[in-house]
């Protein structure tokens, strides 16, 4: 087991190296440059030249690359051109927000998606089934930003039962030390702050969780349908096993394999959904930060971010693989 994990992690090194080269070249081949973005209407040719000179953008690419890699190997991701803060610090303050949001979205997606998909399969061809298929189709086709906008309009403006934006009401003046606001509130005993932060997560969480929800419903349904007709399920029934046992140990467990893979993939994709959701809800996570970095060509942030995401994807895949071995003993034997 440990060997598998070690091997996986070792493979990550050349992947990241290749990625760093590609990224470096790609980011720098984008038209324009950060100097224009920084100076706006005031970008006279002299000012642009002076910024490029002082920031080192006029150096040969190879030299820029080695400087960058040298720093990177020492754990220095550089400084954001736009905000003037170290890239790592920027990630550290924003990543918890996106994780909190993703967790809520995932709980929503998994908590409703698996039971709904399962029910749909069991009542194949009935109203529940048709209903869930239609709902999941809508869930997949509706654009995230549109859904986010509708949710916000309905539940924050028309009937203001939930906050429209942000992570926490700034008037609360809560203590933060982990930057996971709900957790901070619980740890410091400021329960009102935790509750407030949680309320801020509901609407963006629902918006972000809808696509994964729809996909999980479909995959669970398909998978359960396949498994519940399998020979071993029939055999189990013939042996007179209790229906409960058959459902939990034979059907659900086996049906979960593709679902887990899907959840893993969707977790990675949540980040891209977060770009839109966070913008609509003025939610200060990694998504809205990345959007700004793209618009303003913030090289160090873009590079750091993509390397960061690559590591994240690799880790999620690793977790998915490990969970296979827990769910499916056959994988363990291989």
């Amino acid at each position: 087991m440990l060997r598998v994990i070690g091997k996986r992690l070792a493979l990550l090194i050349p992947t990241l190296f290749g990625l760093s080269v590609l990224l470096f070249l790609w980011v720098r081949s984008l038209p324009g440059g950060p100097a224009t973005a920084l100076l706006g209407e005031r970008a006279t040719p002299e000012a642009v030249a002076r910024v490029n000179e002082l920031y080192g953008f006029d150096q040969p690419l190879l030299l820029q690359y080695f400087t960058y890699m040298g720093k990177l190997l020492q754990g220095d991701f550089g400084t954001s051109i736009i905000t003037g803060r170290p890239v790592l610090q920027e990630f550290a303050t924003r990543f918890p927000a996106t994780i909190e949001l993703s967790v809520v979205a995932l709980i929503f997606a998994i908590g409703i998606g698996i039971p709904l998909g399962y029910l749909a399969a069991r009542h194949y061809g009935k109203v529940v089934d048709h209903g869930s298929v239609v709902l999941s189709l809508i869930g997949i086709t509706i654009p995230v930003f549109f859904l986010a906008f509708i949710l916000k309009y309905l539940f924050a403006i028309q009937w203001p039962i939930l906050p429209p934006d942000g992570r926490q009401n700034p008037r609360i003046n809560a203590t933060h030390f982990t930057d996971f606001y709900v957790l901070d509130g619980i740890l410091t005993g400021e329960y009102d702050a935790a509750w407030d932060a949680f309320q801020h997560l509901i609407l963006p969480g629902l918006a972000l969780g809808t696509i994964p929800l729809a996909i999980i419903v479909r995959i669970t349904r398909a998978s359960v349908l396949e498994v519940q007709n399998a020979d071993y399920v029939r055999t189990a029934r013939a042996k007179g096993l209790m229906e409960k046992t058959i459902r939990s140990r034979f059907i659900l467990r086996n049906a979960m394999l593709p679902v887990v893979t899907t959840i893993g993939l969707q977790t990675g994709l949540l980040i891209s959904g977060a770009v839109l959701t966070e913008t609509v809800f003025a939610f200060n996570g990694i998504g809205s930060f990345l959007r700004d970095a793209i618009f303003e060509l913030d090289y160090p942030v873009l590079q750091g971010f993509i390397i960061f995401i690559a590591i994240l994807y690799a880790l999620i895949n690793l977790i998915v693989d490990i969970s296979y071995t827990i769910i499916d003993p056959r994988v363990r034997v291989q």
Partner: protein
Amino acid sequence: MFTSKTARGTLPTRKRAAAFTAGAAITALLLSGCVQSQREEDGGAGGEGEVDSTFVFAASSDPASLDPAFASDGESFRVSRQIFEGLVGVEPGTADPAPLLAESWETSEDGLSTTFQLKEGVTFHDGTDFNAEAVCFNFDRWYNFTGLAQAPSVSYYYNNLFRGFADSPEAAVYESCEVNGDLEATVTLAKPFAGFVPALSLPAFSMQSPTALEEFNADDIGGSSEAPQLSEYAQGNPVGTGPFKFDSWNVGEDLTISAYEEYWGEQGDVQQVIFRIIDDPQARTQALQAGTIDGFDLVSPADIPVLEEEGFMIVPRDPFTILYLGINHAVEELSDPLVRQAIHHAIDKQALIDQTLPEGTQLATQFIPDVVDGYNEDVTTYEYDPERAKELLAEAGYPDGFEVEFNYPTDVSRPYMPTPEQVFTNISAQLEEVGITVTPAPDVWTPDYLDRIQGTEDHGIHLLGWTGDYNDTDNFIGVFFGQEKMEFGFDNPELFEALSEARGMTDREEQTAMYEEINQQIAEFNPAIPLAHPAPSLAFAPRVDSYPASPVNDEVFNMIELNE
């Protein structure tokens, strides 16, 4: 299969029903809890006729820096204006200089040295006295910037107005600062600079506490190779003399300042300001509607009637902007003065303003708004006259018109141009009327659009503009037409020289007269078309009674009046 279905029995169904009921009950409870807490918040804020002294304003981004010397963006300055004050302020509601930390000043005859008499009894938020030494400390600090601190993206205003630093004295406008006593300081310039005093009203030249600047290494912006890194001072320790002192900055979320008890001036209704960072314009409007903020800037023209109807207060600023149709003279047809005149006559500016720009927008006949020195009432104008436009085109040898690329930006809203796409559509239609065929060339604002217009020759006519910083004519027309630029692609040494000469004049009256002449010179040359001076608007919650709107954004929140 069939057997197994019936074998599932009825019990689980009942259980499921119970589970659903429980789920529904919990959801209902949660939601009613939300409603409850919302009510409590609302109730708590109102409170028995007492004014809620916390004011929440939505900013479109974080400040780039809390050290105004290293900032040039609107959001940094909005915050700086609360924390800091300069020697020179702005006459409320105008763009004219007024005494602030300096009660008076006198400039020598040669225009090179200015002696400031300082206000007595002013202290910085950290207890440091504000005096002549503090003034000279600040001037010397700017002059002695080194390395990345000299980059135009970092110390933009110092670069632009004072030109050189201690290590390049030949270009520098500043020479020295002398302490004549506790409350008198003399600043000597190496070159005449008539705009010197008005320039000091810019937040970039605010007085900062020498103690805090040193303690928190304000000039240490080394950072890594690619970008300057904010100093400890600029990240969280700004110290000025203003009505508010800095409390906290939750990057990306909010920034809080609170009333400075020892402030020399008036303390208003607002005791705490929270700047919430909401970068999406739509989200700012919705936040105001939902009641989570008290106000925001740059309201989209389309939202104004809606917000007004819902009872929100719209406050327009006097315009201090210019929106123009740029013309690239490097394009053969456009280099012909007759063609440029034809384009000018083809555009119905009033219709454009009525249809696409916010209320309060003024029609532009020249490239400066009327409150700026040198505005010329009698400048040559080109009335809307499509027939004349067609005649001029025929005279220029294009009786059937010609084809031209029309560049405009997308995904952007500027104070002088809230909706570029609409402006483009409107003007295109007008040009087509006189036979000029427009090829639309949209680009994303940064970096594509700006790069293409300012850094290449690959453009035809385009939309761009400017928001002035302070009452300085050079800050408008000098920026546009002071030198040969790829944006306009013309070489007019006569105009360049005149602008350069005007800039260096010491006598303000003479300078104003010269700028009036230059404005006429520009109008005759007709290098580009001034369209409008759009008025940016702010929107506020009904609990805000008044807001000190300023054409140059010199808006200090201790002047806000609240009714609940």
